[in-house]
């Protein structure tokens, strides 16, 4: 899976917007999207919100978790705990990038997400801490030759960053180990 595919999946999340046009309810294959009235907030998927924003037809309301104080708390909690803490949103990294970059490109000040730079820094801090924990746990998994591990609260993007490397390295280790014990039963498994 590619990072861009994960971003594509992230665009299905809903976000609140305030349109400046009016349109009746539209019936799409994925679901209905409520009637649009100027000035009234409505929930739409992120892909539609981005398209409307680029055409200057709506204002995006940042999600509740995209706030400096809340993110600071989450970052401190993440640093204290050894395991992964619950995330603000399963696609927090992608949404941050999409919403904040879009605001940067268009720069219409009235619907700026306030303190975008600080939010970006805080989200990156949280991401770095989590990836460090992931690396640490993968390392201990391999060195202690565990058979299985359980990690809670990982998001798809984080899994995606480590997936290819972890699987390939586990396969290599398996090949090396099975070559050390040539007659063992494990040799009957298919060679990668």
């Amino acid at each position, binding site marked *: 899976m590619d990072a861009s595919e994960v971003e594509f999946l992230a665009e299905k999340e809903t976000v609140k917007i305030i349109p400046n046009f009016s349109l009746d309810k539209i019936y799409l294959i994925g679901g209905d999207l409520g009637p649009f009235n100027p000035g009234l907030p409505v929930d739409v998927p992120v892909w539609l919100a981005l398209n409307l924003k*680029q*055409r*200057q*037809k709506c204002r995006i309301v940042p999600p509740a978790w995209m706030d400096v104080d809340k993110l600071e708390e989450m970052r401190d909690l993440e640093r204290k705990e050894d395991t992964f803490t619950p995330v603000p949103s399963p696609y927090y990294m992608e949404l941050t990038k999409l919403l*904040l970059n879009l*605001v*940067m*490109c*268009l*720069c*219409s*000040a*009235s619907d*700026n997400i*306030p*303190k*975008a*730079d*600080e939010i*970006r820094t805080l989200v990156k801090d949280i991401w770095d801490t989590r990836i460090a924990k992931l690396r640490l746990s993968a390392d201990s998994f391999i060195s202690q030759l565990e058979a299985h591990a359980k990690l809670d609260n990982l998001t798809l993007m984080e899994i995606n960053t480590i997936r290819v490397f972890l699987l390939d390295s586990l396969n290599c280790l398996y090949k090396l180990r099975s070559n050390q014990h040539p007659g063992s039963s494990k040799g009957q498994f298919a060679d990668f």
Partner: protein
Amino acid sequence: MFITDIRKEFYEVVANQRVALLVASDIDALCACKIIQALFHCDQVQYTLIPVTAWQDLGTAFLEHKEQFKYFVLINCGANVDLLEMLQPDDDSVFFICDTHRPVDVVNVYNDSQIKLLIKQDDDLGVPSYDDIFRDEEDEEGADSGNESEDGSEPSGKRRRFDEGAIERRIDRQRAKREWETRRREILFDYEQYEYHGTSAAVMFFELAWVLTKDTKDMLWWAIIGLTDQWVHDKITHMKYVTDIATMQRHVSRHNHRNEDEENSLSIDCMRISFEYDLRLTLYQHWSLYESIYNSCYTTCHFKLWTLNGQKKLQEFLADMGLPLKQVRQKFNSMDMTIKENLRDVIEESSNKYGMKDIRIQTFGVHFGFKNRFLAVDMVHATAALLESTEKDESNSDNFIKALDSLSRSNLERLHSGIDLAKKKLMAIQQTVASCICTNLILSQGPFLYCYLMEGTPDVKLFSRPMALTLLCKYLLKAFVSSTRNKRCKLLPLIMAAPKDLEKGTVIVLGIPPESETSDKKNFFGRAFEKAAESTSSRTLHDNFDTSIIELKTEDRSKFLDALITLLS
């Protein structure tokens, strides 16, 4: 006809249709094109973008597309000729013309159905009134025939008197008609004699975006670049430039004011436009200060940097400001912070001592991210260099698309490559000017000055393009005026010729008005070239949208010049 409400009569008409955008090849047109493209994207209007370089191009493009489109938007082309006669369109094609070329052809002004001009009517146009130019022929004939029938029915006794009366009336009418026609010719001659430029097309389209409340900072920046292009290529007077800058300044403060409400306003990556009273040293922030002073027209002409004396004066000037040579030859970004802080004021003070009163000019700068600062003048030079780049295997439309891309904020490498090309172009111009002055290539031909660039001159390929040649011409005239002692020559206009196409054996000829403080930038060479070409039957191509730039066969050069001399003296 002129459009009064640009939203209702232009935008709402084309919003639901497919439109063909025919865009001329200059920076103002490119900026206007970006603005209208952004508006079309917002409203999902289908359009086709067709770059055109000259009248023949426009004609071919029109023939190709006339079946598919009813609405054509022409940017910076088409206002100064009788468009309907040239293109012969169908009766239901509508042309929206936003053009800075003046004078607007009278047929375009008075055509009510097919031609709509997106031009402000108070833009100093001086269009002759309808009755002075057009006249209904029917009334006269009706009166004539009425009189004749009366004559026939009258008894013979009174016939002679009535005949005389009728004949006298007819003679009077014919005389009045002749007088009217001579007056008409005079009025049209005065009206069409001088060519000049009006308000920038990019500014017009920005005002459309503003009326639609869809204006963004990007569009404002493009409008500023379009206006600065008119100033850099000397198309508008200084007064007009200052007035238009004031208008743009109002828009800039409006946009900036929106951000001042929140305390931690914008992300560092957001675009910030600011009004700058900055130095007239071209590209100085992307070059070293020394190179910029050496290659900018203003400083070169004042110091006369093609002479040894001038170079000594430049060293004195730098010493007077207390700038060490090592610092000044460094890339500007790597100069010491202490020097950079007060640089503008220090330079202004010193330049006043050396006689350069206007070293600073009002302009705008943009700033996004930590690294990216550009002045409007820098962008104009970079995009112009990309648009007219003479690399092999690059067609005109490739260059057009590259230049158009460089105006977006996401294509910074293209912009930087444009800046590099612009530096090379400026250095080439500087060297050519120095060699022309030192070898006295500028000859006074009586009513004008004349300079011909030989084929072997270095970088002569660069000057086969109209905008680069215009810049060279302007710099050369300023340098000549500052270096000559002949008072009469200082008031003469300049005609310049450079080889254009070696295979076809043609040269490009252009003329610019004389250099003066209060010049109104009105150029009479368009008509002069036409008449000279006719009288000597030289093989010329009056293809460019600016009538003062033509292509001429090299062999006809001397007889063409002689005709011009006789015409203008």
